[in-house]
């Protein structure tokens, strides 16, 4: 396992190099001059040229590419607009995104695993049908609708939670529910399918034959085996949550990485976009590697080679 893990880790720099090169080239192709966003049109062409020269925007592509890596590695990659190091800005935002992602994942797991297990246990009954209907509705409701609805009911109507922001007590609840409930829908179906498959196994029948209680059979034996696909999906969901909570962050004014990237793209803050995408790619790669490691821990039959 350690050799496998080392190989995966050794591949990371290559992956990130490819991602950063792709991001750099793609952001160069996007229409829109960063200088226009910085100084507007009320500027002479001389002033614009001056600013472009100051930020090396007119240098040959190859030179800029080398400079990008030099600045990135020295921590001197700076936002065009704020002139602050990109790493410093992202370091401020990432904990917020991480907090929200973990809370959403918790919501997703707390809803989906019991619901999916129950649906599997009550297969073919109204409980199963209802669970799957709930999952279908959950997956069909977009977060840009669910978020405001949760605000109207729980923040305006009942006054239980803040409308938006990240600084008041309980402010994480509604954005976590918005993200978590959508993800729970997929996880519920995965859990149901996986538990159903496991419940048909011989060792489950043997466990029942030994007189173990149904709760012990399901929770201790069936769920442990069924957990592999569940963990896979949870891992993917965590990656998606860490990198793709843009809409929810916008709705709930949650100061995370997603909002920062959207703002950077809108204002053509190229170093900010490039640095952010690289960070997100790193997160994805690390989360995926950790998910693979979790397989082996959960199920010794899965050998990491």
């Amino acid at each position, binding site marked *: 396992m350690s050799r496998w893990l080392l190989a995966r880790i050794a591949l990371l720099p290559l992956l990130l190099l490819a991602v950063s090169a792709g991001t750099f080239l793609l952001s160069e192709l996007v229409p829109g001059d960063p200088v226009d966003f910085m100084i507007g049109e009320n500027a002479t062409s001389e002033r614009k040229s001056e600013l472009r020269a100051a930020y090396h925007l007119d240098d040959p592509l190859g030179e800029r590419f080398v400079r990008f890596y030099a600045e990135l590695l020295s921590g001197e990659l700076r936002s065009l607009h704020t002139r602050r190091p990109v790493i410093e800005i992202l370091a401020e935002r990432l904990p917020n995104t991480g907090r929200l992602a973990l809370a959403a994942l918790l919501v997703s797991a707390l809803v989906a695993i019991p619901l999916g297990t129950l649906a599997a246990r009550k297969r073919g009954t109204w409980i199963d049908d209802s669970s799957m209907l709930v999952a279908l509705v959950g997956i069909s409701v977009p977060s840009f609708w669910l978020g405001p609805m949760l605000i109207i009911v729980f923040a305006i109507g009942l006054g*239980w*939670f803040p*409308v938006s922001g990240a600084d008041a007590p309980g402010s994480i609840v509604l954005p976590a529910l918005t993200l978590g409930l959508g993800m729970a829908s997929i996880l519920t179906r995965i859990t149901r399918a996986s538990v159903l498959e496991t419940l048909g196994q011989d060792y489950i029948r043997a466990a029942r034959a030994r007189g173990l209680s149904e709760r012990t059979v399901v929770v201790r034996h069936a769920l442990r085996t069924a957990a592999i696909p569940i963990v896979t999906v949870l891992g993917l969901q965590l990656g998606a949550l860490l990198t793709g909570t843009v809409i929810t962050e916008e709705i709930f004014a949650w100061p995370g990485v997603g909002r920062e990237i959207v703002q950077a793209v809108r204002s053509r803050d190229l170093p900010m976009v490039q640095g952010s995408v690289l960070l997100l790619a790193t997160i994805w790669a690390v989360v995926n590697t950790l998910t693979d490691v979790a397989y082996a821990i959960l199920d010794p039959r899965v050998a990491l080679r």
Partner: protein
Amino acid sequence: MGSLHIAGPGPLAIALIASLLLSCGRPAPPDDELVFLIGSWPTNLDPRFVPDAWSEKIAHLVFSPLLIRDPRGELRPHLAESHEFASATEVIVRLRDDAYFHDRTPVRASDVVATYRSILDPALGSVKRLSLDAISDVSEVAPRTVRFSLHRPHAPFLQVLASIGIAQESEILANGTAGDVLWTGSGPFLFEEIDTGAHLLLGRNPEWFGGRVGVEHVRFRVVPDATVRSLELLRGSADITQNDLPPHVLDHLSASPDLVVETAESTLVKYLAFNLERPPLDDVRVRRAIAMAIDREAITRHKLRGFATVAHSFLHPDSWAYAGDISVLRHDPVGARALLDEAGLPQPADGSARLHLVFRTSQDETAIAVAKILRRDLAAVGIEMELRSNEWGVFFADIKQGDFDLYTLSGVGINDPDWYSFVMHSDSQPPSGANRELYDDATMDALLEAGRSTSARGVRATLYRQVQHLAARDLPLVPLWYQHNVTVRGADVQGWEMTPGGGIDALAHTSKGAGP
């Protein structure tokens, strides 16, 4: 097969959850704190940078500029006690003697000189430098007197003095050109807490030269979504927002007894631009026909819910340079069709369009909704309008390159009539300005240059009235409407006053409840 038993929550758990929920909701802000909602984070509050509108507005509360705009939009002394044109190229500014920085050191001429020189230093890389193009030198004449020398006569120069907040010389020297944020100003508020991307807390400056500040704290909270901003106001967890909500939401908020929706005229003008390089838009009759086809009264009344007034000039009727006798274009589809016929664009017998035009706009929902109405209005006179809506960066890059027949944009902060130079002087064609319609008229250029070169207001007024008449005759752009400034505030917020430019300087005198 036994059943799977899931234990229900006991009374203790329910009580715990209930008490947790009751403690969660964001409480209403205290009386000594005003919560101001904004849609985007101010990117750089250093007064030498302030690259966006919110950065500039908020920085002005901390770093007082030499001049300020009153509620009528007129410039008046602020950190300056007086200012005068000593000659056509020399402005003398005297500082007031009761102005102190937040650390109790007096504001001196050397601070003003250091601020302006820092911005003029190319090494700083400040985008503000372009607005100081007219300055050849800034120097200290006496401890409280500053001289601005200009390269050439430049009447709009005083606008510059109202746009740059003064920082402390010692802090500027200590920070060099690193572009790090400066913190010490002399305004009504001082920085207390910054949580990047989330909120910014300003505290009262007890020694402010402008008098007692209305509230102890102003908290700017960033809420990007307009619907959520309106919900925050309805909930009472925020006190005020300005120009950040769409018209249909404003209607809804007006119905709340706890909120006040206030409007005031503004200097923001929505306009329609033609590409004069693309026939038949090079024919003024076609441009006039298009302008006459648009029912601006109906759009402002219904789509914009009365939060706009039809415009006939880029200058507001309250401006000292407004031409009251300017020709007015009214909605006249019959006249528009006749003009198109006259221009050689008859309606085809098969009922197809006589003209196909590409209209460019951003993805702003109100802009798209208005564009759809324009499409309907133009269809009524036989013009087929293809609507292309793009993300702002793409839209802006395309119209700069001339990839459009028509587009609409807003002219922001039209405080001085020299703004016409920006959109109609032939030297302002891209990449050096916003004359994207590529209008080129020698008379217009001469009038604009003359207007900029004299500081005599009477002379300037005469020149700019001619400019407005010429613009109305040639119609390279059609001013559509003045977008009102709109504030939504709690009913207990007092002392708030709007300015035509949408500034927030009035926060210094705004309070809640019974007042200070």
